[in-house]
């Protein structure tokens, strides 16, 4: 029996909590966590008689995102009620946007694949809705309690177009990463998948290669990382194929992702289509966008990640991986560019930023752009190396001190006397090492070149890293020849 070859098609629904000061329809602060039910009011608790008033900042953030995703903007857009019962939904309906005129329609997001090729993933809608509260289940105590701090937090939903353009787990991950990057650039989301402020829900289906028909899709939830997005889709595609190969059918259902076991777990069958009884929200008035306003928002959009990656590669001659890593966070990329402009070697800035500075920042739990090492200070450090004032090895010591004290590289070097040793000084040290190790010198003379490394090491140790390797090698050569 020949094995059928399948291809996977993946639609994606992503939700991002917006970075507004207040909630979607009331004045309560929009923040993660906190003492349960401390950021609530009659509106987000859905008390009888309360009414929603939409948050203009949230509307603008969705508009910015829709424009950045190349969407057409609905000049007239309205809210709808999505009706269903759940304890975390205090009004018994979620205010959302249904139908053909959400804020943004028909856009796309580009992803760059490992081989450098770029693929367009079409987006069908970008809309605004409100988040729900959270149920907290007591283990075995027979009750649950509710926290409504998250209730009414503005939530943006971004849905890919059908038929799906995403055709692998890797593409699903790249899409989620690219989207997060755009959202961070627009400063509309903090993009924290582990906290659930950004949620990616792929719905993969498979079909035999060459088939015109689409397979039954399943929905994946609880994917708390990009890696989980890729693994979840890959696992699910294999599971679906195994079902079909075993003579069974794929059943439309929602699956959760078990990160530890690396498997998808059935959560809920979708035997009947959910009946949400959508209708226009009568408590809110329609939003009519002014084209001038839309254009002013469009004009204020920052350079987006993919374009910036391309530019950094060309302008600073950076390796693709470095450019990608720098651009993944807007503040880091801004920091790099500020530093690179003041430095004599942009590549070196990238290396120091992605290397030692990132390591130090991660250890301290601070974003790399917010450590005591400023962009100017990093440029200074690189310039000292370029000028030959300090060695790369000393620079590692210098940046540690800069990170602790907030001093500039020049200050640290001056304070600790770390400038490169002069050739005379190095020559003296070399002479001393040779004099102290006659047996090693004899081995070298006898043809054991490996022992030369030991002497070099002794010199470096004695010079405390301030000697240039070139100087050491040259002077060692001369000294051995004369020995």
């Amino acid at each position, binding site marked *: 029996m020949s094995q059928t070859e399948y291809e996977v098609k993946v639609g994606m629904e992503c939700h991002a909590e917006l970075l507004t000061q207040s909630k979607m329809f009331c004045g309560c602060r929009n923040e993660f966590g906190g003492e349960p039910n401390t950021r609530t009011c009659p509106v987000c608790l859905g*008390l009888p008689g309360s009414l929603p008033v939409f948050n203009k900042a949230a509307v603008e953030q969705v508009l910015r995102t829709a424009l950045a995703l190349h969407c057409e903007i609905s000049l007239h857009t309205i809210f709808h009620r999505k009706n269903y019962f759940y304890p975390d939904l205090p009004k018994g309906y979620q205010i959302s946007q249904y139908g053909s005129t959400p804020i943004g329609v028909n856009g796309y997001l580009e992803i760059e694949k490992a081989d450098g090729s770029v693929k367009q993933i079409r987006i069908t809608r970008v809309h605004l809705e409100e988040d729900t509260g959270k149920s907290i289940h007591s283990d075995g105590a027979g009750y649950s309690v509710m926290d409504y701090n998250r209730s009414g937090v503005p939530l943006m939903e971004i849905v890919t177009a059908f038929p799906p353009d995403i055709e692998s787990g890797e593409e699903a991950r790249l899409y989620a990463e690219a989207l997060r990057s755009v959202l961070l650039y627009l400063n509309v989301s903090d993009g924290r998948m582990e906290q659930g402020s950004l949620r990616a829900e792929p719905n993969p289906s498979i079909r035999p290669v060459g088939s015109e028909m689409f397979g039954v899709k399943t929905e994946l939830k609880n994917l708390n990382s990009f890696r989980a997005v890729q693994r979840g889709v890959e696992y699910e595609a294999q599971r679906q194929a195994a079902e079909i190969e075993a003579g069974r059918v794929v059943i439309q259902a929602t699956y959760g992702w078990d990160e530890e076991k690396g498997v998808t777990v059935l959560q809920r069958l979708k035997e009947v289509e959910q009946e949400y009884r959508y*209708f226009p929200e009568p408590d809110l008035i329609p939003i009519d966008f002014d084209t001038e306003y839309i254009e002013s928002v469009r004009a204020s959009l920052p350079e987006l990640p993919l374009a910036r990656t391309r530019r950094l590669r060309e302008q600073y001659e950076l390796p693709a991986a470095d450019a990608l890593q720098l651009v993944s966070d807007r503040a880091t990329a801004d920091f790099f560019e500020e530093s690179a402009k003041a430095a004599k070697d942009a590549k070196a800035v990238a290396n120091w930023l992605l290397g030692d500075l990132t390591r130090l920042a991660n250890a301290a739990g601070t974003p790399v752009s917010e450590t005591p090492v400023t962009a100017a200070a990093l440029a200074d450090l690189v310039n000292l190396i370029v000028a030959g004032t300090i060695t790369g090895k000393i620079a590692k010591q210098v940046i540690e001190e800069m990170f602790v004290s907030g001093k500039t590289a020049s200050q640290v070097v001056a304070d600790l006397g770390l400038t490169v040793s002069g050739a005379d000084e190095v020559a003296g040290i070399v002479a001393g090492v040779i004099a102290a190790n006659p047996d090693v010198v004899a081995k070298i003379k006898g043809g054991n070149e490996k022992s030369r490394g030991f002497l070099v090491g002794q010199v470096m140790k004695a010079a405390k890293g301030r000697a240039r390797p070139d100087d050491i090698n040259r002077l060692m050569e001369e000294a051995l020849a004369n020995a």
Partner: protein
Amino acid sequence: MAELYELTAADLAAKIASREVSAREVTEAFLARITVAEPSVHAFLTVTPELARAQADAIDTRLAAGESLGPLAGVPVALKDNLCTAGIETTCASQILRGFVPPYSATVAEKLQDSGVVLLGKTNLDEFAMGSSTENSGFFTTGNPWNPDRVPGGSSGGSAAAVAAGEAPLSLGSDTGGSIRQPAAFCGLVGIKPTYGRVSRYGLVAFASSLDQIGPFAHTVEDAALLLTAISGHDERDSTSVPRPVPDYVQALTGHVEGLRIGIPAEYFAEGISPEVRAAVMSAVGVLRGLGAVVDEVSLPYTDYALAAYYIVAPAEASSNLARYDGVRYGMRTARSSNHIELFERTREEGFGAEVKQRILTGTYALSHGYYDAFYLKAQKVRTLLQRDFAAAFERFDLLVTPTTPTTAFGIGEKSNDPLAMKLSDICTIPANMAGIPALSQCCGFDTDGLPVGMQLMGPAFSEETLLRAAHAYEAATDWHMRRPNL
């Protein structure tokens, strides 16, 4: 000399302002009257005597200090119990909200408090304002002060009965399909459903959001104008309230209607309207004509579809608005549940009355996938057609005059087993809600049983001044408004 409780709000306010009587004396007079009338009327779900006395004393203190207060300072009011009042139980006459004490007040309640008005208590209604008689109250039925065996109308029957019985000089109700105007007609009062968006709905427990408006009950047009002025205006907390300046509606009461163009829509005088009601309204039109108004007939052909469309739109919105009563956060919770689904189902089964359940079911059906276009969307289209009907009529006329109700107050129990007959009692009032236009009901006579007859005036959006002016002129030429029931 008339008792204090028989006076108009305007007279009471004048006496309080001039310190002829104290606000406290006025409040005591009404509290005493409540004690006398309640055993037969049952207008109140909650009486708030301590609060009323404290508010009245505060007004007296301010007046003693020489402060000049607003035109309603010290005047008592009663509020329909679907208006949220901070610290005071608000039930919507539903078992499901028993024990619910809101942490906040409706905008209208705040505005009244700022006007120095004294709150006497919360009045009975049909559960969640669904009904035309108060017989759907989850607690008890209110009696009509003109005849306790008759209904006071509904849903704002408690607010109407309280004023008619002299238990309060003023009250607020809410009107979704006639819930102010119909009880005003049955109780011989002035009742106004303002233009949609004129009064903030914030804190009004929603029945049908696109139709609900809060409005006043009073003995006289002037009193109604005073109360309407106090509660109107844009509210940032209600997106559907309209940012438009609020006139002093009392200033509109000029007494002049010369040249006012009045339309008589034939559809409102058709089959089903009792001959006595028709005669009383036509006679009132004759009075207005005598005062100089120009009267002519007009047709509003889509009127016949208003009731059917209303019974799609209102239940549909209600089915969603009432979803929040699930026993999780406030109000009643079933004692018999082992999971959240049972908690929802049993709380709602035990907490809602039959009429509310029936409307939730109707509305849920109308919004369901596959039915939405046939019902809700179609009903919204009918609404547009009704609006066009009115727009065309208002090109020719300044206002329209119709009966408020097909009959005078019916007997308690008479229609409670005939839901269609009950709903037909709103046939004249529903179109104004569907079109969002203002409408006023006032007394234009009494039938042979001694029950009041209501006349309805309707005008274009934000024409409250015209309605008040015409009603005031009619009132000045007649003395129906002077009559009081014998309790």
